[in-house]
């Protein structure tokens, strides 16, 4: 969900044709025409491991949506968050290809970037086997999507709504952006500016936890409201200290689109993984019913939920809790 669009460099261009050809060959072998009365099979490929809450909720939504439809669902985890070396990711992709060979699904659904980047793009691009992806952030064109055999739901964040709420509660117009120093977050900030016309008066990209704390403190005086985005790549993250700093030292409204950043943020609109899981399952059913993936336009998520941290609200003197907001402390 937070991976970049960079293609594995050692695969391009030397082995590109060879692998794409092999992928197409494999896809051709794996694509199984659906015959009447044949049990319908869907393989859901999760880029991460079981226990990763976000992806588990997507998989659960897929499973729930397919329950009672006569579809046999198999879920395969690539585990590329815990085993994130390039070799591990490629090995995981080959394992998925093997599963596809043996399970022979009629549709493959994927969640998050690595399944697209390491399975769909190198092995099944424009092949016969239909793919439905989700969890690719902001723009799937980085992987050349959509393909003739693939459609999906791009994951976007309700940034305008968050900023609108922050403005109503801020004492000034200056907006800050604090996130881990990764290409993905830089690109995300550019999307904010291009899509929503949001201009950040100060940006804080940090590589480690002390840097995050320093930036968080600096932002309290340098801007009037602050967007807090992903910190998953900060390896020395200290949740307890971050919570204490946020609860004790927040002076301006802060917002995020991640529910797990809510212990450090005043306000948030969290995306709902279930929306993506339901859409992916719905698209898979359409395809199983004979619709071509090319006739299902790529779309993006729209649903979210209000999140609110009353401890931080108390620190900066905000007493009104947005109605229907889920309280996270």
């Amino acid at each position, binding site marked *: 969900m937070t991976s970049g669009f960079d293609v594995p460099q050692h695969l391009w261009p030397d082995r590109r044709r060879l692998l794409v050809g092999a992928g197409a060959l494999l896809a051709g072998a794996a694509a199984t025409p659906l015959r009447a009365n044949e049990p319908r099979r869907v393989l859901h490929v999760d880029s991460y491991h079981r226990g990763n809450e976000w992806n588990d909720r997507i998989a659960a939504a897929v499973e729930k949506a397919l329950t009672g439809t006569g579809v046999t669902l198999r879920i395969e985890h690539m585990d590329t968050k815990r085993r994130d070396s390039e070799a591990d990711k490629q090995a995981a992709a080959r394992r998925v290809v093997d599963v596809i060979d043996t399970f022979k699904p009629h549709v493959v659904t994927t969640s998050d970037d690595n399944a697209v980047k390491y399975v769909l793009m190198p092995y099944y691009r424009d092949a016969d086997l239909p793919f439905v992806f989700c969890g690719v952030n902001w723009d799937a064109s980085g992987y050349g999507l959509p393909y003739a055999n693939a459609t999906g739901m791009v994951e976007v964040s309700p940034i305008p709504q968050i900023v609108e709420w922050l403005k109503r509660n801020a004492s000034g117009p200056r907006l800050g952006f604090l996130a881990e120093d990764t290409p993905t977050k830089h690109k995300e900030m550019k999307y904010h500016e291009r899509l929503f016309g949001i201009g950040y008066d100060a940006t804080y990209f940090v590589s480690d936890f002390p840097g995050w704390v320093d930036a968080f403190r600096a932002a309290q005086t340098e801007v009037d409201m602050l967007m807090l985005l992903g910190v998953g790549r900060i390896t020395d993250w200290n949740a307890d200290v971050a919570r204490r700093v946020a609860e004790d030292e927040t002076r301006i409204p802060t917002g995020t689109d991640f529910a797990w950043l809510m212990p450090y943020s005043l306000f948030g609109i969290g995306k709902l993984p279930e929306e993506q899981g339901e859409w992916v399952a719905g698209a898979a059913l359409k395809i199983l019913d004979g619709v071509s993936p090319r006739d299902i336009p790529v*779309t993006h998520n729209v649903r979210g939920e209000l999140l609110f941290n009353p401890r931080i609200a108390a620190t900066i003197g905000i007493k009104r809790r947005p109605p229907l907001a889920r309280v996270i402390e």
Partner: protein
Amino acid sequence: MGRPEKPPTDSTDNRHGSPPSLARSTLWRVGTRIALVVLVATAFSYWHVRSGIEEQALAGLERYVSERRARESVPLLDAEESLAMLVRQYEKALQDPGTETSFNDLFVEQDDGTWRTTRELFDRDWVSGFVGKHADVDAETRRALIGAVDVVRRFGPSWPGRFANGYVLTPNQAVVMFWPGHDWALGGGDWEIFGKLALMREASGSGGVVVSGRRDAEPAKGTRWSGLYYDYGVRRWVVSVTRPVVVEGRHIASVGHDLMLQDLIERTVTSDIEGAYNLLFDADGNLIAHPRFMEAIQARGGALPVGETDDGHLKTLFSIAAEVGRPGGLVEVPGQDEYLAVSRLDGPGWYLLTVFPKELIAFEAVNMAYIVFGLGFAALLLELTILSGVLRRQIGEPLKALVRTADRTRAGDVAHEEILGELDTGRSDEIGTLARAFKDMLNELERRETALASGNAELSRLNLKLRHELGERKRAESELQRHRELNALLDSIDYGVLFLDADLKSRLANDAYRRMWQTAPDYYDQRRTLREDMEESRRRGLYMVSEADWPEYLDERIDRIRAGPFGPEELQLSNGRIMEYECTALHDGGRMLTYYDITDLKRAQANLRIHLEGMESSMDGMALLDHQGRYLYVNYAHARVYGYEREAMIGLSWRALYDDDELARFDREIVPVIHSRGRWRGEATGRRQGGQTFPQDLSLAATENGGLVCVVRDISERKARERALDQALQRAEESNAAKTRFLAAMSHELRTPLNAIIGFNRIVSRKTEGVIPERQSDNLAKIQTSAEHLLKLINEILDISKIEAGRMDVAFIPYAPSGVADECLRLIEPMVQPGVALRCDCVCDMPHATGDAAKVRQILMNLLANAARCTLSGEICIAVERDGERLRFAVIDTGIGIAPEAQATIFEEFARLDGAARTGAEGTGLGLPISRRLARLMGGDITVRSEPGEGSTFTLDLPFASRSGSLPVSEPAPSRAVGT
């Protein structure tokens, strides 16, 4: 005499407070009744007005809803009509053969596989187009798109202000858009364009997967409205309306508009009617606008399912709205105190609801009731004001004048005629009658009071006199009481006090003064001059002033006292008492002389000085410490011991004089002892100012005030001597032990060959008896004698060695003392000189003693052998007696005796008597030392009494029941020689 006058009081302020006012009570009764009428009228007005207001409000609400529905539906219906027209024009454009614009002039294939219109087209006509990269760009699509460009270009300029945009969508993911200022289809990514297309097509709130329609598929008929969604292009919340274009049964395209409903939403969440609020539902029950839930609605993507709010009230409202249906109506919400106005908007079919709380109607009615009540209350106040004026003028004022007249009459402060002038006696009504009767009564009262006043004046004068006398008497008694208390106080103190008046005559002398000056108890009953008083004391011989000096002394002293205050000064009397006296001037010119006997104090000071001098001269360090352990006083020796200047130690803590280890010992061992026993003595290690430590004898005693008395002595030299002595003693003991070991070893090694010599010599003598010459036989005899002497000497050395080495055991068995004595006499018999008698003086029935009989025998044999060697004539006697728990053997001879100076050394090893040598009875010099050590080993001793030429008596004193030696045997006590 008249009655005492009573101060006048105002009748309007009588003992019951304000008097009941006739006017006031009348006003109260009238006002109360009118107020009740006003309240009833107000209540009636409220109910009447409320019902009217409710009818009006509901009618107004219905009107409002109807107007609102019409107003909000205008842009929606406009959009639908616009699309209907656009469909017709588009169908015409598709069929118009005049369309010749080349598709390639409008669209260019992009690197990503998409087709997009040219920038020039947008810059010129605000038209942009997009074809997805997997779409089939066939001829029909091209015609559809060319027609779309044509129609939106022509009709687009009429849309701004009415719609955000207008567009044509084909079933295969192609779109042509007229959107002023937004090159949406040129710059947006696939997902942005497709995402919006999906939202455009999506029925409100279904959230499902959108499938691009195929041309041959059956299109949805009529106008379709999307749900509310956030458009990333305009960054606003919009809703899309589309209408399919079907040509010959084929779905060629759809035309549509986006409507920005921000105004509609804002009008919804801000109600026109104060107290009421609006909300917007779509047909699927999704909340689109609500004044409280807008944040949640927008977070949810613009449509919040009512089921997710967990708000039963909202669910009820929606179900009512669904039941009411189009076009709407006004209903009362069951179970809620409110009305619900429902109207369904044309176009998307959304429900616009207005919730109108009933309390708003009640509020209006209450406001009206307040107005009625206020008016009624104002009228009431006006009526009461008028009535009050009339009552006051016609009744209140005449009555008050009557009351004032009565009060002033009672006070009698003005003339009679003036008082009556205020009454209106000319009125013919009840008030006039009352005034005239009152006037007659006043005239009668005046006459009686004149008679009464004269009597009262005399009575008042006598009363004042009596009060004055009583006051004087009380003051005198009080003064007398104070005087007695002062005397008692003066008599109870130790100070002698003599009060003198300004003429220096005695006024008062307390008991202490009389005791000090030994005057009779009644001496001061008469007033004495100071001179008389001093003369009296002199007659008693108390002054140490000579006869010649007395007149001058007396005058000088009296003059000083008269001159003024002085002191304190000391005065010594002839009886040895020392007084401290002081003269104090009194405010009336008198004097107070105070005397205090400081004799004991002086004595204590003298003693203290003596003790202090003793401490100062002490060789030991002495000091006094306060309760915090700081030095209050140190003598020179104390300061010297610690190496300080004396002044430097004052205020210093004793803890500075010891190192940490010693302080720990103090805290652990010494301080608890001082706390429990009050004192401690022992040795400690002090630290001098330079840091050098030294041993000290230390004595600490706690004082009553929590301080300490400290006596310290530097014992460095003594310790050094003790160490030297210990070392010397240790060396001596080591030498002695070495000597003992040597002797024991030597004696053993010598005795073995010596026994062999004696044995072989005895054999040779016996074998050669009568064979060898006599001279050789004598030599053998000398060898025998010398060897036996040497053997004896060695045995005795061995005994001493055993004793000193602590290896001599003492038996503890019963024996007969007299039997041992007899046995020894028999054994010694061969050794005595001829003519010397042997005698035993024993008690025959003496019981058995307990001890070591062999050692007793050895001692007695040694003593008897000495006696035999030293006694050439006379007798040798052994006497045995028991004295309590002691047993004594005495060996008495009539030999040569021992010189006094020799008696001190005869118990030392190898000491010999000169006389013994002369008798040829020389011993080994070890017999007596061994005997004494054995005696002491058994708990006894040997003493000697001797007189040269008269003989000697050796007394062996033993416990009757001895166990073991208790006296030290290594260091014999000096022998005690007793002269005979």
